């Protein structure tokens, strides 16, 4: 049973369970319980599973630990404290772990001071950074509270000796559960948790701590599985919010790039100077560097040592240094990509600036929640927008945030790669009967739907059944006896391989771009494939001419003045959430209704003002934008897709105004491009954005005929075909092959470069396809692309909406792209659907060469 707690306990009830020493310490220090504590402490004391959702700074962590500390002190006083792990605490961040250690040792010391004696309660951190000597110390004297990461937990479960300390665990705390549940790290963890439970006779009490997220019922199920009990505490909105969308200029259209640039930095500077400490989110790494650079350049007096950049590509030391200086209050402003979203303690922040949309309400709230770290502080956030689509998007986002409409997360289902890795681990740890193994796996919420077929395919893969018998010793990872049903380990190297390749986070394939010896940025490896000598491309806002590549380095020339010859693709951009997209679509519909019913400008402005909580400038900009679109064409909305035929600079476009977010549009556009390419027998180029997608062409295409062919029930089959030759499948296959240990990153003491992994994975992919299109790791790569990266489920819902007539489709023509289409074409990233095979393509290209040479009148090549 999953149920929401309706009311908190009385303070007296909570006090009643506390040891007098703990009670004195707590009340001396905090005076009263916070709301999360009134809800949670007693439940955890009573050994009830619980999920607590509250913003940063809402004392979640102490809520989780208070009754556990209390109990350990009780045991210590009675002399009953044993040498075993009582509580396992897991968080996704190593950095957070050290914070937690400090935050536990401090109260312990303070209580010991009151008690004037030692309790002997040990708190220990175990992560990938924990040294060998510390680990052996832990083995002899296990920490009573063990703080760790999902990966280190998996390693401990496979450690013969340490495992013994994990057989009488009473509590499990999963912190920042929202940052785990929606990805494969969380899937991996869910199996580790069930493995941990299996080591224990007693039921472990599970505590989940989460920031703002929805739906909480599903996160609770993730924590305890479907048939488990869990209470939910929802105090997501106890913090006051002060949120605004700002535009650097009154008019977002008639402005030069330079003026916009100058105004933007003036605005940022003004905001920073008006506050004590500011945290800026930019979404991308390159933008992070750029913002720091421009602030320093434009306001050299304001920004010197007091500004810092923080993102994943920077070294660990640099990042720790920035975090430390933030905590010490030595920084005025920190600019980060997304890296400071999660809850490590970063001290006092009184303003969060979002440059560019956070693309989902919950992400926006998490970021803004980094300010006003104390419970009763107000969280202050400013979203700065640079164009009109951005303005509308963030206006609606803000409305949803204020009105507490949080977008739903997606928990991956049946990941066969993670399953392979975990079964390998289970088999290494102990012999197990195949039925027990299946039962254990099905206990995880992420595998509740796992079919026997998929399970046995994974077993066959791990047992090396896909290769010839004589080669099997090279490929088999586990040993499975079909007669007795026993699964076990195989080979001498198994343990080392497992321990050094554990985890789910893929290595990134970024190619360094260099001017001479200086790195100016990175590009995607797949993007490099497209580049030819003398191509001009844009990186971080600058143009570069490509010279040559060697391994994972692309040499470029910086002084180019020609326009780009090749469009960017595969952006780092975050996708707009489906739920938020629908909200924007709804807003569009309301505004169009006003225009259609002939409302005056004043009335419409009032409506916008009212509905979106934006200021006059912003409302005016939105009004003008809609008016242009309404007069020129028609306004698309959540239940009206407009298909606009248009052309620009000689190129023709069919623009689909389908505002459902990029994850849905990725599916719709590819399925359509696939259908067109079959009809017309040619390669189809298309572009995708959050607000829609487009097909570009030179000669007439039967787009509408193809569009009518798309049916919701066939979508998955079509998409599996459409994905076959794509870059995105190749890349995801590499990730899946690495997770399932078909490619070992770490083998015999050598760590493989990502470039090497990429080449190998292509060879591996074509080999695996020859075995079967349904090879479990290939199947998983397709699933990951369709369900996790893209959003086939909601794409199906959209198609069903069209089939049932709930969503109207209107075909319209325009001379030049309509205002809404303009940004869509400009911002979309492009890809191509290949129709012909390599040989056909070669013939076509050869004919082109012949034609070219023919024109020059040379006979030599005829």
């Amino acid at each position: 049973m999953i149920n929401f707690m309706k009311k908190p306990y009385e303070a007296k009830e909570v006090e009643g369970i506390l040891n007098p020493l703990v009670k004195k310490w707590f009340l001396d220090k905090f005076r009263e319980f916070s709301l999360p504590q009134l809800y949670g402490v007693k439940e955890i004391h009573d050994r009830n599973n619980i999920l607590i959702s509250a913003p940063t700074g809402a004392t979640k962590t102490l809520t989780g630990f208070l009754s556990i500390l209390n109990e350990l002190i009780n045991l210590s006083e009675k002399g009953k404290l044993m040498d075993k792990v009582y509580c396992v605490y897991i968080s996704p961040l190593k950095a957070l772990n050290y914070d937690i250690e400090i935050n536990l040792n401090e109260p312990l010391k303070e209580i010991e001071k009151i008690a004037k004696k030692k309790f002997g309660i040990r708190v220990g951190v175990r992560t990938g950074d924990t040294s060998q000597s510390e680990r052996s110390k832990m083995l002899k004297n296990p920490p009573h509270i063990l703080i760790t990461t999902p990966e280190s937990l998996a390693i401990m479960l496979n450690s013969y000796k340490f495992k013994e300390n994990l057989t009488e665990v009473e509590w499990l705390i999963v912190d920042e559960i929202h940052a785990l549940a929606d990805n494969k790290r969380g899937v991996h963890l869910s199996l580790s948790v069930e493995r941990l439970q299996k080591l224990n006779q007693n039921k472990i009490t599970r505590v989940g701590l989460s920031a703002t997220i929805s739906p909480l019922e599903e996160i609770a199920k993730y924590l305890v599985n479907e048939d488990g009990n869990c209470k939910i505490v929802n105090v997501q909105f106890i913090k006051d919010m002060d949120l605004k969308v700002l535009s650097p200029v009154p008019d977002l259209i008639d402005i030069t790039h330079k003026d916009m640039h100058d105004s933007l930095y003036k605005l940022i500077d003004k905001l920073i100077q008006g506050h004590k400490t500011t945290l800026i989110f930019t979404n991308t790494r390159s933008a992070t560097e750029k913002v720091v650079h421009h602030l320093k350049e434009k306001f050299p007096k304001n920004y010197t040592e007091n500004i810092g950049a923080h993102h994943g590509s920077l070294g660990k030391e640099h990042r720790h240094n920035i975090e430390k200086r933030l905590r010490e209050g030595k920084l005025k402003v920190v600019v980060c990509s997304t890296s400071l979203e999660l809850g490590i303690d970063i001290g006092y922040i009184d303003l969060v600036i979002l440059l560019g949309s956070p693309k989902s309400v919950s992400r926006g709230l998490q970021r803004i929640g980094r300010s006003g770290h104390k419970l009763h502080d107000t969280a202050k956030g400013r979203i700065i927008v640079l164009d009109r689509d951005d303005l509308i998007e963030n206006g609606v986002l803000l409305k949803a945030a204020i009105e507490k409409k949080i977008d739903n997360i997606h928990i991956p289902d049946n990941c066969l790669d993670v399953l392979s890795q975990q079964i390998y681990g289970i088999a290494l740890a102990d012999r197990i009967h195949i039925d027990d193994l299946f039962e254990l796996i099905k206990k995880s919420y992420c595998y509740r739907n796992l079919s026997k077929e998929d399970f046995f395919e994974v077993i066959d893969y791990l047992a090396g059944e896909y290769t010839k018998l004589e080669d099997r010793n090279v490929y088999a990872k586990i040993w499975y006896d079909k007669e007795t049903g026993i699964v076990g380990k195989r080979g001498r190297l198994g343990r080392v391989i497992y321990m050094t390749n554990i985890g789910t986070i893929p290595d990134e394939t970024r190619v360094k771009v260099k001017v001479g010896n200086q790195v100016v940025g990175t590009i995607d490896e797949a993007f490099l494939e497209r580049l030819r000598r003398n191509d001009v491309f844009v990186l971080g806002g600058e143009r570069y001419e490509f010279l040559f590549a060697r391994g994972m380095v692309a040499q470029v020339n910086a002084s180019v003045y020609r326009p780009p010859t090749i469009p960017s693709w595969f952006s780092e951009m975050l996708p707009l959430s489906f739920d938020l997209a629908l909200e924007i679509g709804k807003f569009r519909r309301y505004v169009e209704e006003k225009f259609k019913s002939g409302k005056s400008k004043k009335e419409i402005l009032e409506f916008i003002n009212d509905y979106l909580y934006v200021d006059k400038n912003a409302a005016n900009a939105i009004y003008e934008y809609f008016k242009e679109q309404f007069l020129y064409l028609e306004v698309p909305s959540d239940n009206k897709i407009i298909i606009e035929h248009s052309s620009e600079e000689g190129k023709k476009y069919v623009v689909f105004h389908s505002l459902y977010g990029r994850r849905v549009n990725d599916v719709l556009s590819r399925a359509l491009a696939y259908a067109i390419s079959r009809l017309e027998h040619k390669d189809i180029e298309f572009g995708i954005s959050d607000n829609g997608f487009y097909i570009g062409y030179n000669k007439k295409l039967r787009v509408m005929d193809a569009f009518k062919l798309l049916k919701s029930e066939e979508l998955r089959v079509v998409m599996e075909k459409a994905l076959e030759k794509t870059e995105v499948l190749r890349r995801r296959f590499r990730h899946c092959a690495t997770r399932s240990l078909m490619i070992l990153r770490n083998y015999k003491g050598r760590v493989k470069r990502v470039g090497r992994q990429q080449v190998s994975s292509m060879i591996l992919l074509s080999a695996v396809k020859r075995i079967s299109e349904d090879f479990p790791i290939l199947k998983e790569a397709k699933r990951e692309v369709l369900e996790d990266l893209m959003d086939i489920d909601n794409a199906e819902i959209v198609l069903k909406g069209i089939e049932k007539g709930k969503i109207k489709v209107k075909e319209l023509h325009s001379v030049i792209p309509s205002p809404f289409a303009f940004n869509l074409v400009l911002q979309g990233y492009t890809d191509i659907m290949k129709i012909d095979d390599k040989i056909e393509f070669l013939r076509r290209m050869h004919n082109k060469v012949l034609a070219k040479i023919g024109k020059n009148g040379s006979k030599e090549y005829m």
Partner: protein
Amino acid sequence: MELFKNIEIIDLALYLSKYKTLIISDLHIGFEESLNKQGIFVPRFQLDDLFKRLKGILDKVEIKRIIINGDLKHEFGTISDQEWRDSLKLIDLFLEYSEVILVKGNHDAIFEPIAKKKNIKIVDSFKIDDICILHGNKILENLDCNILIIGHDHPVVSLRENSRVEKYKCFLKGKWKDKNLIVMPSFKLLIEGSDVFKEKLLSPYLDDVSDFEVFVVGDKIYKFGILKEI
């Protein structure tokens, strides 16, 4: 397709028709096994594919001599069981047709035991009239030929249309000093090779290939003209 009189491209090989001699370059036997050893568990298909493709060539023309122009095997230092087995199988196949000569490549340092067992000559370069066949990893002085044939670099050309790029193995034909130079593609079927459009080639014979002619190997041979004009 003829590159010069008596020098013809057949699939990924060169055939010197006057001398009934077939040249094959860079087979890299044991590549899959070397991947396995690095912890990449690619199932083994290469040898079967290789046999099929080679037979297609061997059965097409009359052959008196087969020259392997370097890098028969993949691993540098050692010879593994798999390489040993597969190399012997391959050489047995060749010996069914003709005599075999191995031009030493940079991967073949420890090739001697196999060569000895099968009684095969190993040479640094092989000369027929004014044609010299050498691997190309280093300059060989005093070669008295008009035409040099090298391997080593595994040339590949990438063809692009809009956003689509595909790679194909290719032969290159150009000049080195006053001599004619032919660069052969590799017979390593698992990987295409080095893209001549963007990668710096390794052979000291190949400094600038932009004026070289490109012959793409597909279902047949396609002449694509001068590299820089593609």
